[in-house]
């Protein structure tokens, strides 16, 4: 009887944990995403993912980035579109940087927040940055400006206390006192 209860308890724990064999993905079958760029024009979201290109990189060479672009009516749809075009599974776990078009964020703040918070793969410790163009990031020839990044958790906090989040992200307004020293960080150096 005790054995039966033990086996049952273990099985229940396994089932309730949600952890299953379906999560099994070999490392070579994952595409490691290192940055995500978001933009919306008209009713279409454009998402560009910077991924580590393992296959085209020779040994002892720094990993080359590759850019994967997808479109869709929502952020999820755009990411799914990219997923459908690559053979391996997109892994957003390692994405430390999310760059969003300034206007897009202003107009679709709630939707973007919703996606970032609800997607279990996106780390709440990832930095969120506003930019007026993607060219800075994709084209290394372009000049860079300074961008102030906030962790997603901090952004949630800013939103909760009804701060002027857009202008704080734009650097036009100072963040609340409690966040000045500990949370803000310059993602790119000023040219």
């Amino acid at each position: 009887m005790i054995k039966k209860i033990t086996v049952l308890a273990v099985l229940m724990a396994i089932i309730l944990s949600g952890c299953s064999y379906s999560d099994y993905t070999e490392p070579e079958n994952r595409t490691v995403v290192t940055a995500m760029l978001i933009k919306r024009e008209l009713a279409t979201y454009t998402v560009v993912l910077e991924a580590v290109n393992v296959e085209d990189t020779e040994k002892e060479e720094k990993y080359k980035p590759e850019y994967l672009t997808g479109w869709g009516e929502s952020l999820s749809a755009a990411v799914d579109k990219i997923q459908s075009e690559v053979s391996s599974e997109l892994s957003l776990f390692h994405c430390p940087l999310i760059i969003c078009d300034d206007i897009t964020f202003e107009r679709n703040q709630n939707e973007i927040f919703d996606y970032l918070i609800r997607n279990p793969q996106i780390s709440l410790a990832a930095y969120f940055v506003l930019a007026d163009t993607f060219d800075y990031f994709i084209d290394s020839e372009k000049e860079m400006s300074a961008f102030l990044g906030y962790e997603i958790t901090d952004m949630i906090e800013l939103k909760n206390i009804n701060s002027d989040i857009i202008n704080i992200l734009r650097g036009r307004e100072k963040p609340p006192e409690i966040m000045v020293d500990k949370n803000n960080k310059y993602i790119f150096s000023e040219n």
Partner: protein
Amino acid sequence: MRILENVNLLKGQKLSIKLDEKIEYFKNMYLKDATFRLRRMHIERYAKFDCAVIFFDGMIDTEKLNNGLIRSLLVSEAVNTQNSIIEYIEKQILFNNEVSKTDDIYMMIQAINLGDTVILLDGTRESLVVNTKGWRTRGIQEPDDERILQGPREGFDEAIMLNAAMLRRKLATPDLCLERLTVGVKTQTNVFVCYLESLADEKLVRKVISEIKSINIDGILDANYISELINKNRFSLFKTVGTTERPDIVAARLLEGRIALIVDGTPVVLTLPYLFVENFQSDDDYYLNFIYAGLGRVLRYVCYHLSVLLPAVYLAVTIFHPNLLPAYFYASISSARSGVPFPSSTECIILIFIFEILRETGIRMQQSVGHALSIVGGLVVGQAAVDANLVSAPLLIVVAFSGISGLIVPRLKAAVIYSKIFLVILTSFLGVFGLFTGITLLHVHLYSLDSFSVDYLDTISVFSKNSLKDTIVRAPWWKMLKRPSAFTKDLIRQRRNND
């Protein structure tokens, strides 16, 4: 010819009075034994009687037999002051150091099997058993598996009497008890149950003796036969009966109130009760400075855990939880994996088996070939396998490191291998959850174990300042004033001058 299936059936049986019938009896018994020797003699000097000596060739010391026994029987001129001829021979004729009388056929057979000589006399049921043992032994050597940096270099031999003598030399006290038992219907193997009477738990001693007496097997060729037969945790991965080939270890364990079993024909001595912490203890811990020894023991604990957990943690992190690794580290693992035909979990189990094959082959081969094999197996084949994309380099490093770490705790060899594979399989299906389920199950198993009614994790699970002095690290000798409390009657190990 007499066919005797169980020599124990002869216990209490007696021989005829007539010498011819006695001789006939033994000749019939050993008709097909080419090593059996019988010499008949007629004595007329100090008394007139017929006698015969029986023994096995190769088991006796010819010098002892010829000069101590046959010569004294044939040429003695001592004046008979005894009532019977057998007492006269025993007390006045024989030069040998050990002579006893018996009329039990079983005792006679036992004696000649151990290298003694039996003198059969006409006109009496009794015979004389004379010590003429003279078979060769391997000699005292340092055990290969228990080499130490500093300390005694002697190890047990296959001869039980020599082993007992080595132990007696370490524990020169009448408190040392060596109770003899015979096990094995065909082998009639002698077993000494050794303990210090003032320290060992009497109930435990009686329990062990009763367990050994209840063994009914045809032969005991090594101590492991007894270890498996008296061990209640038969399916456990973890040893609950200790083994050693070093007399100093046995002496140290007896001084803690434990019991030792010396088995004839093997240098391996069993000690019990045996606790989990003993797997991590080494002789060096006690013979080297406690600061240095402490570091060694901590390393053993760390390496044991690394060995068991590392492959499973690697799989859990790379397959199920890549977010726990930095992006470029994960990318390099991913890059190393590309082109490998097997899934990581299968690859891991294959590599564990390959490592064990190489290790086992290295042990079985001659030492010189073993070293070459390790180099060829470890470096050449490993490098070739990585270059051929048969295995990935990171996993190869993980499994090799885990395997090498496991070698630091040789007493837990089996437990490490099986636990590692068990955790790898669970992790392959359930990720970190599987890993922790496995660790929990292993702990439940460890907590359920006992060694002869003493909790296996006694000194770890029960917090006691005294017990902890010899667990994760070894306290200096001047701090270890008491013995472990679980199995000894007398706790005081050391008294200060002012106590």
